[in-house]
């Protein structure tokens, strides 16, 4: 494949990795920056996960045992905020950094320095966010959705969090611009758009969503900031404002945001399944169109998060119909994955296990999404544990498990070593089982009427909460195994060779494992 001739002047690329800490602080290398993103997100995953353990510990039994309600609200809010902005999103950007240049045969990202800035803004925001736990009044406690007027009542942590989210937004927007430009402008000769691996497609569309909606989030939280500190009244009815207006603007960001977190996961799964079914992805073109139409629809469904705010009936119906429509492209994707498996020659390495579990469990989340799309049913279920179940099925068994599968899939490429397959499988089964023990009962809790975001609950919810907590502890503990496997693999293991997966056929597998510090310095020719 790599047929391009040598270019005489390699001078600019001779700089290898500087040694020591400066390699990471000043990097302009997409692989190093990708690695930074991935480690950062893993750290945040454990941080926010620890908060989740505390939540489940408090909810283990009815009554207030460990935390006052104010602290409990901080735990739920920060768990959500950090998981979304600190764990899931950065890890997906980490994948983008590592994989996109390798998959399209580019030498690096389009803007290597900007890339580094996008990363190093994350720890800055992380410091600011984590610091809020130690300021008077404690951290953000009004929910990750930051609804006013409740948001107006918080202390200085609320302003700090706004600034932190602003920084995260800058990071995301710059990262997204970088990704779009890389994909549009850096493809190797012959790599037409419709030849791009699906992972690259999903990221292209995700990056578009990011550029489009992160500024809208910035706008919404800027209004919060000025309402809190500078005398504006955007959300104050007496002055002509409206608290619900915030929700509209927030969810105009928020719904595309959930697709930002799932589309790259779709891409990862669409890469893994064909590799282990040893069969090309079924319906590549329709997959691309499905992703594009999901992205388009995601701009016009936002108010399905607001069915109980009392919109006019026309609004309720419109958003119900558009939300139901999203199920169609989503369904197409699931059908395509199943059709890819059909009559393949399937093996079950750890990445494949995660990918299959993704298809199965994500579908459950999709179905609960359908249930929630119906206004009358949503009115019963809105702000209950049913919604919590829904979004953990799409975000944990969806995004997070796809990410784990992707890590197992590409670890050999990234490190040059095979991970421990036996431990990987143990990790998978523990995760899959514990996940379901934790979150499946939440459907019942929600149906039976348990509101979300409460520190204490009525007695009829006790059994399921206890089961859920036990599952949660197991789920949390299992992830330590993941950490161990990753570290073990990074430090050594069987040599992976260029292409450890015989069914994998994207460009990165033509490179050594790990790839040279500068790969594809001269672009390969894609036939």
């Amino acid at each position: 494949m790599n047929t391009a001739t040598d270019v005489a002047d390699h001078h600019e690329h001779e700089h290898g990795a500087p040694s020591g800490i400066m390699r990471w602080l000043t990097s302009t290398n997409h692989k190093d920056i990708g690695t930074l993103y991935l480690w950062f997100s893993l750290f945040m995953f454990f941080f926010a996960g620890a908060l989740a353990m505390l939540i489940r510990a408090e909810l283990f039994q009815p009554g207030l045992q460990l935390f006052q309600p104010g602290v409990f609200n901080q735990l739920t809010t920060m768990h959500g905020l950090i998981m979304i902005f600190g764990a899931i999103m950065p890890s997906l950007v980490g994948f983008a950094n590592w994989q996109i240049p390798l998959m399209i045969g580019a030498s690096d990202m389009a803007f290597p320095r900007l890339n580094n800035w996008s990363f190093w803004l994350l720890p800055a925001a992380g410091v600011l966010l984590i610091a809020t736990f130690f300021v008077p009044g404690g951290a953000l406690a009004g929910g990750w959705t930051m609804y006013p007027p409740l948001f107006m009542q918080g202390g200085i942590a609320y302003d700090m969090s706004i600034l932190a989210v602003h920084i995260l937004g800058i990071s995301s927007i710059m990262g997204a611009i970088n990704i779009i430009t890389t994909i549009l402008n850096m493809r190797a000769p012959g790599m037409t758009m419709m030849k791009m691996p699906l992972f690259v497609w999903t990221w292209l569309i995700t990056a578009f969503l990011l550029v489009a909606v992160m500024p809208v989030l910035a706008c919404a939280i800027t209004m919060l900031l000025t309402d809190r500190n500078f005398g504006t009244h955007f959300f104050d009815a007496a002055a002509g404002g409206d608290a619900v207006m915030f929700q509209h603007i927030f969810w105009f960001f928020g719904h595309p945001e959930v697709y930002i977190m799932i589309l790259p996961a779709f891409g990862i799964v669409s890469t893994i399944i064909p590799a282990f079914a040893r069969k090309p992805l079924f319906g590549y073109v329709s997959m691309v169109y499905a992703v594009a139409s999901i992205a388009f629809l995601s701009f016009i469904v936002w108010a399905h998060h607001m069915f109980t705010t009392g919109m006019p009936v026309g609004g309720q119906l419109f958003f119900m119909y558009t939300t139901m429509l999203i199920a169609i492209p989503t369904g197409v994707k699931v059908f395509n994955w199943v059709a890819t498996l059909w009559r393949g020659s399937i093996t079950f390495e750890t990445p494949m296990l995660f990918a299959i579990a993704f298809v199965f469990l994500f579908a459950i989340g999709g179905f609960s999404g359908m249930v929630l799309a119906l206004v009358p049913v949503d009115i019963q279920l809105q702000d209950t544990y049913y919604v919590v179940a829904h979004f953990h099925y799409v975000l944990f068994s969806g995004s997070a498990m796809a990410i784990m599968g992707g890590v197992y899939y590409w670890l050999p490429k990234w490190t040059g070593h095979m991970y421990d397959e036996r431990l990987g499988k143990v990790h998978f089964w523990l995760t899959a089982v514990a996940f379901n023990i934790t979150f499946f009962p939440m459907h019942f809790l929600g149906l039976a009427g348990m509101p979300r975001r409460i520190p204490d609950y009525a007695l009829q919810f006790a059994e399921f909460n206890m089961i859920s907590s036990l599952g949660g502890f197991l789920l949390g503990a299992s992830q330590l195994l993941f950490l161990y496997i990753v570290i073990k693999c990074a430090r050594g293991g069987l040599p992976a060779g260029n292409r450890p997966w015989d069914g994998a056929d994207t460009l990165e597998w033509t490179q050594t494992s790990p790839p040279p510090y500068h790969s594809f310095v001269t672009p390969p020719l894609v036939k």
Partner: protein
Amino acid sequence: MRLPNRPDQRVGPSLRAILAVSALLAGLLPAQVHAEFGLNLHAPATGLAQNIYDLHTLILWICCAIFVVVFVPMFFALIRHRKSKGHPAAKFHDNLAVEVVWTIIPVLILLGMAWPATSLVLSMKDTGKEDLTIKVTGHQWKWEYEYLGDDIRFMSNSSTPKEQIDGAQPKGENYLLEVDRPLVVPAGKKIRLVMTASDVIHAWWIPAFGVKQDAVPGFIRDTWFRADTPGTYRGQCAELCGVGHGFMPVVVEVVPEARFTAWKEEQKALLAAATANAGKTYELAELKALGEKVYTANCAACHQANGAGIPGAFPALSGSAIVSGDRAGHIDIVLAGKPGTTMAAFGKQLSDLDLAAVITYERNSWDNKVGDVVQPSDIAARRK
């Protein structure tokens, strides 16, 4: 749209036994936990809730059917098309006909679901022709009910004792779902609720009625229900509203019409008695006793039962300069609240007597030993 079988909301005995046994084996379930738990939506008590229930059942079955149709083939492939079984990989990667079919069929299914959903939305939104209108106001963390046109207005506070929450007492049957004064409505009448809030967004929710409506400060939103069977129905606030969010139950008592009329008369008599007492002077002990109740219901969530507050979040009242200082300053902050904080303007929520009582209580409890008595007339004088 109604399905023939009326699903039972209780868990089957065997599943319940398994769950209970496993939990007991772990020795973890506190003995008082015996409330029935559900697997499904509450038993409907209104026509709307019934329709929602049926719609949910319908879509649940549709989802299950699709699930089977999709995943049976997947598991078939996973079992039969394995490399270890020597299955060779096919080469196909496209099939227009199949792809068109599996795009069209979901569209049809969706249309089938949208139809009943739409008609139900329309009837839920139809708040006209009501028999009775009640204004519901959400406050941090209690509900206020006002029977429009009837001059009846009262607060409904959680009545679960703090000791139960902290585990010092066994938890009662309706733990966290009980209030001092429920909303009382006549059976078989169309009740229109007009909803608003004074501070942050709350949501008024009775699952058995199929009603959940956000209460948005400064706006009026309406919703309705008609409950035919007398009884007590319980729900909770369903929108995060601060530290007391989990302790803001909604309880509605549906009573026969005659009983409702009698109840209204009682309320009016009580109100009249209160007005008659307006000029009365009270003793310190009397006010303190009443004040403690008012304090527990309205103030303790933030300032805590021992008056110590939560450092950084809610100021302590014990030893506070305002509380042990000038009476006027103390009365003013309770009446007007502190804008931009959780401290509400209680002047709009409590009667002069309650305010006098709670202020007297605060001035003479914990470390505060001011010794003076604030009378309802003092409050009336400082109201502007």
